[in-house]
Every structure is written in structure tokens, then in C-alpha cells.
């Protein structure tokens, strides 16, 4: 039976979805632990991409840059939490929304001012070969980005599931009050979650530079996709985010091929509206 381009599209969709997963896990982690929808999430991705680009200029392969970028993103996230987010949590819920929104505008403006609106790609990008598996052809860079994202997502998942701080994070997202009574230091854990969530987009930014250019507004599109993924998976659910991301990756790639590349995001956003209408708790969530 000839499936035509379908296997190629499915593999490509899954690889795209894995990158979405890493970005979305960061978003959902922050939401789960401190009930904050970080509208500046995409801007941290954008900063990570510029940092990777800068390191590539001095000759560092994005794959080797990844640990440094992720670490820098973690530190940045923790600092932003301490300086800004913590202050906003005391106000009404809208304060956090406007605060992270202001951060989005600030970081985008800063990138535009300091880096200009030009598109920046890694010079002499590595992994330019193509792998052939049956009749599926895969760009090495795309494959490495997707698998790298899978490894990073798995690491985050393992951290949250199997380590002591991870358990504290989960306790916080399940029942804040009880977690506080058990003596969990909420401020520390919030900073950890925000740092970790930002580190996820840090790693994703490094991987994304293998196949994608950096520019000031690059984060918006990915953040929007991540919002869709997180709503799909249920706000706060790491497993849900992984599942939702692969689904969104498939929808985007298949929609791009069978409908039109220019319209590929319409089914993704429409999916969000359908989920909100019919299953607001997400695919895996319980009401």
C-alpha cells in the first residue's frame, strides 16, 4: 500500500511536536506550581535563540551551547521571579497577566533595539546531511532538534517525578495550602519552577537555532502554540503537554501539507477554541 507522503509528514509532525513539548512543559510547569500564565514565555525563547546565535558566532555548535544557554535561562528565570513575579503574586490575578505582558513588550522592544529586526541564522550550521529511512527523508538538524527536545523533556519529567525538589513542586501544584503546612518553602519552590520553566525554553531555543532564525518577534508564534498545547493537555499537566504538543505538531504539519502552508496555524488555533468549548479541562484533565 502506498501511503504517499504521509509517513514523512507524520515523522516530521512528531519531531516538530517534540520541540513544542519542551516549550510547553516549561509553560505548564510555571502554571501548575504558581498559577501564573507567563505571557512572556516566548520572549525567553527569543533571548535563548539570540544567546545561541551569539555563541555560534564565536564558533560554538548549538548542541554544545545548549547546557550553557539552559543554565543562563534558569538563572534569568529565577532572577525575574525574585525581582518581578513575586511582587505581582500579591495583587489580583490580572496583575500577573499585565506584569508578564509588560515583560513581553519590554523584552521584545529591547531585542528590536539592540539586535534590530533582522533575521539571524547560525553561520555554517552543523548537521546539514539528510537521513533516508525507507522512503522517509529526514534532515539531520531537524532530527537532532526533535530528539534533543525529547531528551530534555524526559529530564524535566524525571526531575519532577523522582527528585525531592520535584516532589515538592508537585505537592505545590496539587495543594498549595497543604504543601505550605508541610513546611515547603513556597518562595524557593516558585523561583525553582520559574527558573526551570525558563530553562526549558532556554534549551528549546538552542535546539531551535539548528533549523530556525532568531528575530525579535520569533517568540510570539511559539508561545501561542504553547498556549494551545497547554490548554489541550490541561493547564499544569506535564504528560498532557507532551501529548498535546505531538498532536499540535501533527496538526500543523499535516494541515500545512494538505490545506496550505500559509494556513497551517489556523487548524492549531481552531483546535484551541474547540478544546475551550468542549473540553476546557484538557484532554487528560479531570474537572
Amino acid at each position, binding site marked *: 500500500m502506498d501511503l504517499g507522503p504521509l509517513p514523512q509528514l507524520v515523522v516530521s509532525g512528531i519531531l516538530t511536536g517534540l520541540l513544542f513539548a519542551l516549550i510547553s512543559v516549561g509553560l505548564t510547569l510555571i502554571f501548575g506550581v504558581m498559577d501564573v*500564565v507567563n*505571557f512572556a514565555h516566548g520572549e525567553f525563547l527569543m533571548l535563548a535563540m539570540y544567546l545561541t546565535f551569539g555563541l555560534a558566532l564565536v564558533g560554538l555548535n548549538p548542541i554544545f551551547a545548549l547546557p550553557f544557554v539552559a543554565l543562563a535561562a534558569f538563572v534569568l528565570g529565577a532572577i525575574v521571579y525574585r525581582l*518581578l513575579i513575586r*511582587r*505581582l503574586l500579591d*495583587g*489580583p*490575578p*490580572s*496583575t500577573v*497577566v*499585565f*506584569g508578564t*505582558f*509588560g*515583560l*513581553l*513588550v*519590554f*523584552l*521584545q*522592544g*529591547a*531585542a*528590536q*533595539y*539592540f539586535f*534590530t*529586526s533582522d533575521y539571524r541564522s547560525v553561520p555554517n550550521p552543523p548537521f546539514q546531511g539528510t537521513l533516508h529511512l525507507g522512503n522517509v527523508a529526514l534532515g539531520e538538524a531537524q532530527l537532532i532538534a526533535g530528539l534533543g527536545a525529547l531528551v530534555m523533556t524526559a529530564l524535566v519529567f524525571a526531575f519532577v517525578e523522582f527528585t525531592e525538589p520535584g516532589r515538592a513542586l508537585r505537592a505545590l501544584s496539587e495543594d498549595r495550602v497543604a504543601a505550605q503546612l508541610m513546611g515547603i518553602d513556597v518562595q524557593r519552590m516558585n523561583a525553582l519552577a520559574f527558573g526551570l520553566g525558563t530553562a526549558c525554553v532556554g534549551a528549546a531555543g538552542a535546539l531551535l537555532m539548528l533549523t530556525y532564525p532568531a528575530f*525579535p*518577534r520569533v517568540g*510570539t508564534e511559539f508561545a*501561542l502554540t504553547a*498556549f*494551545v498545547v497547554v*490548554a489541550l493537555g490541561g*493547564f499544569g499537566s506535564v504528560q498532557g503537554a507532551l501529548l498535546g504538543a505531538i498532536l499540535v505538531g501533527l496538526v500543523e504539519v499535516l494541515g500545512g501539507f494538505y490545506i*496550505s502552508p*500559509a*494556513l497551517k*496555524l*489556523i487548524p492549531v*488555533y*481552531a483546535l*484551541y*477554541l474547540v478544546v*475551550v*468549548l468542549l473540553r*476546557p479541562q484538557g484532554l487528560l484533565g479531570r474537572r
Partner: protein
Amino acid sequence: MTPRSHGLALGIVVVALAALALGYHNAFVLNLVFVGLIYAVLGQSWNWISGYAGQISFGHALFFGCGAYASALFGVHHGSPWLALPAGALVAAALALAVGFPCFGLRGHYFSIATIAVAAIAEIAVNNIGALGKANGFEMPILAPSLASLQFDDKGQYVLMALVLFAIAQIGTITLERSRLGYYLRAIRANQEAAASVGVDARAAKLATFAAGAALAALAGSLYAQQTLYVGPEDTLALPISIAIALVGVVGGLSTVWGPALGALVYVALARYGGAVLGGQGHGLDLLLYGGLILVIVSWRPDGLAGIGGSIRRFVRRRSAETPA
């Protein structure tokens, strides 16, 4: 401020700007005033839903675009621009109801993200639909200047039209604050469940506010299209426009009569030095400053510039009360 002092302030602003529009023929300045008024109206329409009704929209450009595209389509197909105004407003209000109805029952972020998603869908669709001009948009035909064609040879007359719309937006807000709906919205923001317990239908109140705000934004879009005679997705529907509208609303102060006007004033002043207004990509300094301003305001003064103004007024009053006459 009482309704009377709001009305007095509005009268002074309108008279001053009308005098400017009629007496000062500097096209550059008048254009800036026009854009400032359009943003003040957009910010106010956003303030109704995101300030007074507490549902934060990041897709407000959608409604601005409804009006702009209605005017463009009527212009290109030789319809009266005066019919474009209600047509755009109706479409915008219908879209607002369609988004608000499923989302207002859920927690706030579902709504905020839905507004981004719907505006993004509209932008992509417009970019790909021939009848809507695709990415190139529409050049509207130039007609003989008259009130009937809503085209003028003098920039000042566009400013006068924008002033009328601005006055409607301000009077609407002053009325809203004192109306049954205004009481209901305040009660909902304070405690939605307790409001429901005394018979307040929160969803209906928010839907009415959202639809009215969307219609107002569409009117601003129509007027904007009549002045530029060009309508394209980049400068009416794109996310940066939605962001700019929200900026104007937050910086000036949420749920205040004069916040959006103050925000628009700061926005136009900054954009004047920071690059382009409405759609163009500036060099980013304006966004940098604006974002920084929001961060400062949100972490120190959530009530925005209008709130700071209120504090100054109280301070001055206290000082003058202490000073023996």
C-alpha cells in the same frame, strides 16, 4: 471625580482640540492628534472589557480590523462609508459575542488566549483570501471631499470626526460608571459569586460590555481607514496592534474614565520618537520604554497614570488645605 467634572474636563479637551484642528494647519501635528484620538478610543473600548469587566483581551485589533475592512470593502465596492460604520460595528459585536459566550464561563486566561487565537486566525485568513485583499490589503478610491464621502482635503476635519468618536467613547464611559451595568461590573470584579447571589448575570453583563467595546473599536477602525485610505492586515489586525491597544489601556490606568486618553497621549509621544505608529516597525526603543513603564506601573501603581494623577490631586488638596489662607 463626579460626572459633572468629567463632563467639564471632556468639554475643555474637545474645545481645545477642535480649535487646534480648525486653526492650526500643520499636517504632521494634526496627524499625530488624529492617531492619538483613535488610540484613546481603542484604549477606552479595551478598557470597557478588560478594565471594567475584568476580562483581559489581547486580540482587540480584531475589532479595529473589522471596522477598517468594512470601510475598505464599502469603499472599493462603491458603497457609502456611512453604511460601513454600522456594518463593521455589527460584525465586531457578533464576533465578540461568539468569543465571549464560551469563554466567560471559564477562568480568565482561557479568554485572553482565545482573543489572541481568534485575532490570529482572522489575520491569517485575511492574508490568504483574495476578496479581502490578501497581504497587500486595499487602496481605497479617492472621492470628492465631503461629509457624505467621509473624505476631506484637510487633516483637521479628520481630527474633528475623531473628536466626535472620542466624545462618544468618553460619555459612554462616564454613563457606564453610573449605570446599572456599571454597578454590576464592579460587583462582578469584586466577587462574582456574591454578585450572582443577588441576581447579577455575570456572563450577560460581560457580553454586553464586550460587544459594545468591540463595536466602538470597529468605529475607530472605520474612521482610521477613511483617513489613511489604505487598509492591510499588518497595520490593522496583527498582534502588535493588539499589544499597542492593551498598552494604552494599562499604562493610563484600568477602569478609569481618563486612563486610556492618558495612555494614548504617552503612546503617541513615545512612538513619535521611537519609530512608527500603528503597524510600522520602529527601532524598538518605544516598546522598550513602554514595556518598562508597564513593569514599573504594575509593580508599584496598578491603577496606572490616572491613579498617580489622583494621588497628586489628593496631595495638592491636602497641602492647600493645610496652608492658611
